C-alpha cells in the first residue's frame, strides 16, 4: 500500500468545474487509467482520495493537490503517465510524491496559497488599481468583515498576507496568503475590502484568480518556513521567523 500526493494543474474550460465535479472527474479518470486504487470498506465502497483545498469556480491553477492511496503500483512515474494518458488537456498531473506513514493529509497540512490575480477583460477597473493597491497594502492594519457561521466578524488581514508583488505592466498581483484551518484569506475578501476602502464596489466575478501553488508549514530546527507541497527549489521557501 502506498500513499501518494499528486500535484495537478487546472487550465482552460476545466476552470468552470466545481470542486465536487473535479472529484468525480478524478474518480472516473482513476478507473480509466486502471490504477490499483484502494477502496474503503462497506456496502458502497469509495476510492480513498482527498483534496487539499477547493479552488473556486472560474479560477485556474498550477498547484492543486490530491492525496490517494493505492494497493500497488510499479512506480510513481507510471501512475503519473497512466493518469495523464486518460486526462483532458485542461487537467494534468505535474508531479507525484510518495508520502510517509506520518505525513498529514494535504487538507490538514495546507498552510498558505500563492495566487496571481488579474481582472477579467470585460470587468477591468477604471482606475490605476495597482498603484492604489500598493498604498492599501502598506497600511499597518487591514480590517475586513469576514462571514462566519454565526454572522460576521471583523478580522485583520494584514498578518494573513505573507508576501506580495505587483506587476504594473501586466496589471496583476502575486500574493502569498494564509490558507489553513486556523486562518484563511481568500483573494475576493481582500480585494472586496480594498475596493470598499476606496468607496467602490468590486463587481462579482471580476477577479481572474490563478493559484500558483499550495504551501505547507515546515519546522526545521530553529527555522520555520512555508513552502510548496512538492518542490525541489529552496527559493520557493518563505521564512516565517524573520
Amino acid at each position, binding site marked *: 500500500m502506498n500513499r501518494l500526493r499528486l500535484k495537478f494543474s487546472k*487550465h*482552460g*474550460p*476545466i476552470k*468552470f*468545474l*466545481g470542486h465536487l*465535479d473535479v472529484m*468525480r*472527474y478524478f*474518480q*472516473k*479518470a*482513476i*478507473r*480509466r487509467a*486502471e490504477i490499483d486504487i484502494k*477502496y474503503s470498506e462497506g*456496502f*458502497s*465502497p469509495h476510492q480513498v482520495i482527498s483534496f487539499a483545498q477547493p479552488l473556486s*469556480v*472560474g479560477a485556474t491553477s498550477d498547484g492543486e493537490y490530491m492525496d490517494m492511496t493505492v494497493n500497488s503500483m510499479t512506480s510513481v512515474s507510471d501512475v503519473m503517465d497512466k493518469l495523464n494518458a*486518460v486526462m*483532458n*488537456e*485542461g487537467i494534468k498531473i505535474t508531479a507525484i510524491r510518495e508520502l510517509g506513514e506520518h505525513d498529514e493529509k494535504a487538507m490538514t497540512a495546507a498552510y498558505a496559497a500563492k495566487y496571481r490575480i488579474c481582472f*477579467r*477583460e*470585460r*470587468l477591468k477597473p477604471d482606475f490605476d488599481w495597482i498603484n492604489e493597491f500598493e498604498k492599501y497594502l502598506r497600511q499597518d492594519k487591514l480590517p475586513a468583515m469576514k462571514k462566519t457561521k454565526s454572522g460576521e466578524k471583523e478580522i485583520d488581514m494584514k498578518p494573513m498576507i505573507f508576501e506580495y508583488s505587483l506587476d504594473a505592466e501586466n496589471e496583476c498581483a502575486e500574493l502569498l496568503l494564509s490558507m489553513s484551518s486556523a486562518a484563511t484569506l481568500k483573494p475576493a475578501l481582500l480585494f472586496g475590502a480594498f475596493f470598499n476602502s476606496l468607496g467602490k464596489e468590486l463587481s*462579482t*466575478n*471580476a477577479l*481572474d484568480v490563478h493559484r500558483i501553488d499550495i504551501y505547507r508549514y515546515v519546522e526545521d530546527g530553529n527555522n520555520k518556513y512555508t513552502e510548496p507541497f512538492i518542490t525541489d527549489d529552496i527559493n520557493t521557501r518563505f521564512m516565517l521567523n524573520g
Partner: protein
Amino acid sequence: MNFNLALPDDILLSIEKPERYIGNEVNSVTKDKDSVDIRFAMCFPDVYEIGMSHLGIQILYGMFNSYKDVWCERVYSPWIDMDAVLRKENIPLFALESQDPVKDFDFLGFTLQYEMCYTNILQILDLSKIALLAKDRTWDDPIVIGGGPCTYNPEPITDFFDIFYIGEGETKYREIFDLYKKAREEGTSRTVFLHECAKLQGIYVPAFYDVKYKEDGTILSMLPIYDDIPKVIYKEMCLDLNETFYPTKPVVPYIKVTQDRVVLEIMRGCIRGCRFCQAGQLYKPLREKDVEHLKELAIEALKNTGYEEISLSSLSSSDYTRLPELIDFLIKSCNEKKVNISLPSLRIDAFSLDVMSKVQDVKKSSLTFAPEAGTQRMRDVINKGLTEEDILRGSHEAFLGGWNKVKLYFMLGLPTETDEDILGIGDIANKVAVEYFETVPKEKRNGRTIDIVASTSFFVPKPFTPFQWAPMNTKEEFLEKADKTRKGIMSQLNQKHIKYNWHEADASMMEGVMARGDRRLNEVILKAYKKGCIFDAWGEYFHFDVWMETFKECGVDPFFYTTRVRKEDEIFPWDIINPGVTKAFLLREWKTALSGQKSSNCRQQCLGCGAASYGVGVCFKERT
C-alpha cells in the same frame, strides 16, 4: 481541447452550472472543421442534464464521428438564465465542441422524445438565428431534421422541419450525407436536394405532402405533390443489432446528469403488446443482441468512461433470453471493478430478487411494480399481463429478503374505466401492506415498517396504439378520478403506510393535444412560443393559461384532439407513416380491448401485426 469558448468568463460565471455550456467533456470529439464536408449539430431540445442522458444521441454522435467526412457536435436547450443572456447580449447559439454558431452547420438534427419539448425546438432555432419556418430557409440555414418517437406523428410541427427521419437512425444517414455532398458540389437547389431525400425509405419531407380536410375537421387526404415520392413513409429499422454501430466511448459529462452511467442496450422492441404503450408498437419486432457481443461492449464502455455504474436498457429486460448469463457475467466483472449494476424494468420474481439482493442495498432500494390499473378486468383491457397474484407473490418473497419499500404505478383515464377500477388502486396497495405484516412478524421488523408509494399518471392515447381511437378524459374528469383514488386509499386499513402521488392534469391534456394533433397546431405552437412558452415539460415554466388563450386566438379547439370520439375509418394525421404494425391490426386489438379480452405476446403466438414484414427478430423464432 477547445480553449476558445463562445461565452466570456464573466457570463459563464454569472449563470447556473456553466459546465452545461463549455463542452470539452471526456470522449467528446473535436475535428478540424476544414477537413470535413459535413458539420452536423445534434440537439436534444431540453436542458443538458436531460439531453446528455439520452442513448440515441450517443449512438448517432459516435456513428457520425466515425465517418471521416462528418463532424457531429452537440447542442442542448440553454436553460432559462442562459436563454436570457444570449438574447440580451445577442450571442448566437453555439454547438458545444467547436463553440461555433449552430447556423454555420450543414445539418441541425433534433431528437423528439416527448411532445412537451416542441416550443424548445423554436427556442433553439430562434437563438441560432435560423428561420423558424422551413419555407423561409435558404442554403444559409442548416437542413433541419427531426427523429425519435414523436416523429411518428410529426404533423403538429411540420412547418419547422425540412425533413423527418422515421425510424432507427443507424440506417439512412450515410445516404442523406452523400446526397447532400452531391447537391452542394453540383450547386443544386435546396428543394431539389430535399426531393432526392424524399425518395429514400423512412424520409418524410412534409412540405411535399398536401393535406386536405373534411368539413368536420378530420382529414380527407394527405397526398404527395410529386409522383416519384412515396404515399406512405415506412419506418427504417436495423435488421441486425450485432452488426450495427454501438458507442463504447460515450461522452462523459462533468456534472451529474440523469443517466450518469454506462447504458447497455440489450435489445429493441417488446413482445408484450400493452395496448396503451406506443414504444411497444413502434419498435417491433423484438430483436435481441448477442450475449457475447454485449459482454464485450460492457467491458469496453466501462474502460473508456470510468463510470462506476452500468445499466441495462430495454423496454422489458426480463424478456431478454440470455439475461441470467449476462447478469452473472456483469456481477463477476463489476465486483472486481467496484462497479454498480442498475437493473430497471425487471419483472419482480425469484430470479430478479436474487439478482437485486446481490447488486443493491436491500435496505435502501425499493421494489417497483407497474400494474397500471386497479382491477384484473381493467388490466385485461390494457393487456397488461401482471396479476394481483404476481404482485403479492413478488412482494412476499421480497419482504422475506428484507425489502420494505414498494412503488406502485397506475394510470387513470383508461378506456372503459369505472369507479371499481379506480378504487382497486387503494385495494392493491392495502393488500401489499397486509402481505408485509403477514410475512414479516413483528419481532423481525427491527423497528422498520412497510412503506408504499402509489403513483398515478393520466392516460394519454398515442398514435399507433390500439387506443389511438380512444377519447381522452378532460382535466376535470382526471382530477375527479385522482380525488377518488386518494379517498379510496384513505379509506384503507393501512392507509398510513401508503403515500399517493398524482400527475399534473394540465400537462397531460397538452400532451394529448400534441400526440394526436395535426398540421393546424403548427400555428398554435409558434404563437405560444412567441408569447414566451418554453420548457413546457418543466412544471414551473408551463403556462397552461397562455396555451389555452393561444388556441382560442388561432381558432383551434384543443378538445378536437383529446376528448373527441374517433370513427373506426377516420384518416389520422399519422396515417402517412407506417411503423410496421398495420391499422387493421390495431383496430382488431382495439375491439378485443373493448370486449375485455387479453391478447397473447409475440413469443406465445403471432397476432399478425405486420412487423414480420421486416423479416427479422422474434417473428421468426420458435414459439413457446
